[in-house]
């Protein structure tokens, strides 16, 4: 079945367009909520229903924990005993990055899964549920897996690697707001990747991780941006991920060194050398996140329209 721009649902809505579930009656918002929740449940079951919870848990946390351990060993080799002071910086950055990787992969892989493996994308697209809502639901399921990795990495950091932890010292409002806006930005970037994967072929499986790996460079997650050339630091400052990690890190460890500002950084040449406060980080996160979300929405819309026109929604490209 070829899905093209000419296809229109029985309710008169273009396939995949924003709207409720016209055939079901109910409110538009109710339809969206139902579609979202259903796709979250489907996503979760596809992720986890093949094995017992313990095994699934081990699989889910092994990757982020190992990523943190790689950096901890790198620190200890070079910095020796002084590495203990740098561990909290690295552990928190790596733990949060697990959310970025899983979040970005989630949406893109759900496109590839449904188009290439299960060959259901065309049916999902012409179903009454909103295409983007279904995708977001699937992405959220994988984001949940990433969250488990983040929490366990932080717990291991506290229990084994000596990351200081004091519930009373955590700036909870900053942490909650940073998490909220940070995850929104991650989902926006994920939507961008999903738009790209809609246009490319099967080998795109590795694209989300490649993108996340590149973003890792400019995020200040595990090393301060100061060591990068100024133009590359600018790239980091215009993406929301660095601001999110900085704000979250500041909420956890108010005394931690800055990943994006401070002496010698490009940001210091703009703001006079001051390390950005948590509020400034949040503000920057909201602004850059809004730009990323807007850009993702435009690109995704363009990508879906192009996929419709060229019949890419039901194109399998097995190799």
């Amino acid at each position, binding site marked *: 079945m070829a899905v093209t721009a000419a296809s229109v649902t029985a309710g008169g809505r273009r396939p995949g367009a924003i709207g409720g579930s016209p055939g079901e009656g109910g409110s538009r918002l109710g339809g969206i909520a139902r579609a979202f929740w259903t796709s979250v449940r489907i996503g979760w079951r596809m992720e986890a229903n093949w094995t017992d919870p313990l095994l699934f848990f081990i699989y889910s946390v092994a*990757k982020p924990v190992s990523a943190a351990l790689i950096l901890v060993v790198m620190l200890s080799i070079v910095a020796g005993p002084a590495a203990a002071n740098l561990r909290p910086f690295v552990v928190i950055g790596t733990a949060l990055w697990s959310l970025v990787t899983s979040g970005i992969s989630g949406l893109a892989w759900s496109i590839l899964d449904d188009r290439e493996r299960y060959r259901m994308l065309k049916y999902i697209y012409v179903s009454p549920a909103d295409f983007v809502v279904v995708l977001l639901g699937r992405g959220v399921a994988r984001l949940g897996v990433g969250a488990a990795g983040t929490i366990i990495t932080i717990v291991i950091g506290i229990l084994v690697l000596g990351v200081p932890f004091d519930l009373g010292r955590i700036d909870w409002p900053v942490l909650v707001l940073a998490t909220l806006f940070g995850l929104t930005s991650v989902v926006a970037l994920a939507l961008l990747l999903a738009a790209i994967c809609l246009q490319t072929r099967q*080998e*795109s499986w*590795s694209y989300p991780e490649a993108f996340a790996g590149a973003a890792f*460079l400019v995020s200040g997650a*595990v*090393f301060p941006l100061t060591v990068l050339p100024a133009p590359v630091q600018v790239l980091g400052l215009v993406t929301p991920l660095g601001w999110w990690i900085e704000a979250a890190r500041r909420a956890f460890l108010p005394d931690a060194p800055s990943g994006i500002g401070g002496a010698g950084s490009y940001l210091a040449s703009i703001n006079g050398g001051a390390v950005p406060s948590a509020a400034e980080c949040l503000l920057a996160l909201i602004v850059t996140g809004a730009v990323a979300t807007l850009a993702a929405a435009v690109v995704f819309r363009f990508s879906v329209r192009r996929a419709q026109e060229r019949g890419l929604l039901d194109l399998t490209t097995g190799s």
Partner: protein
Amino acid sequence: MSAAAPVAPVAPSGPPPLDLVGRSGVGPREASAWSPRQILVTNLRAIRGRAYPRWRGLFREKSWVAFEILLPFLSTSAFVFVYRSLHAPEAYVGFVVLGGVMSAFWINVIWMMANQLWWEKSQGNLELYFAAPMDFMSILFGMALGGMVMSSSRALSILVIATVVFGVSFSVSSWVLVILVFASTLAALYGVGMVLASLFLVWGREAWHLGQMLTEPVYFVAGLNFPVARLGLLGALSVGIIPLATGLDAMRQLVFAGAPFPIGTPAPEIELAILVAMAVLSTALARWMLAVMERRARRDGRLTIRWQ
């Protein structure tokens, strides 16, 4: 009106026609009696046929250049800057670059060797492979060969770009050993890939998650970005059983001769011997496992069950 006379079949004159591999077209019994040359040629063609989509695919997807070369280079660069931020000796930057190069092959082994048969089953190709008149090992060799070409382009790009951008200088103690170690590492890596391909086929959906398990955790125990000797007993075990760890450690010793880093692993010559043993053992094991898996799959009728 007269009925048209039936057309009599034209009897073939001369010897029966031969196709490209010299099979006789006389009858099924004759056709099934293949000479060693026919078997060899068919298997070589199968290897070429399975390798073809991989190297040909390099030129067909433009986005591949950005996502398979440029972005992984940036990912490798992140670890370079971790060392730079710590003012580590320059040799450590070289370690990261070498790790980035070898990780290209490991990723290929995990996602395009180990996971491939399960993927082929989901696509519906697996039963065609089993039904085709060739040794299944030819398919695996073809996948490995195509994968090596594919990964080599990525690995070479990372090596060249990173060497130029970060000014990595190599101090090679023996080119012959470097080449032997590199070739043996690839042979052992893809041998392991062939073994995993059989296992993953049986494990089904777990394979995807196992693939994830075999990336970062293996990078850690193999010492992708740091000398594996630092891990002590765990590092020694890795050198004994993970070709990525053995090959990386041997190459580090050979191409960064005299660099100050923790030593404690075997000499490159011994690690070369370990790699050769791994390559031979893994290929033999892959052959045995394929036979077992094929027998089991035929018995249980699971060859055509998708998405399990």
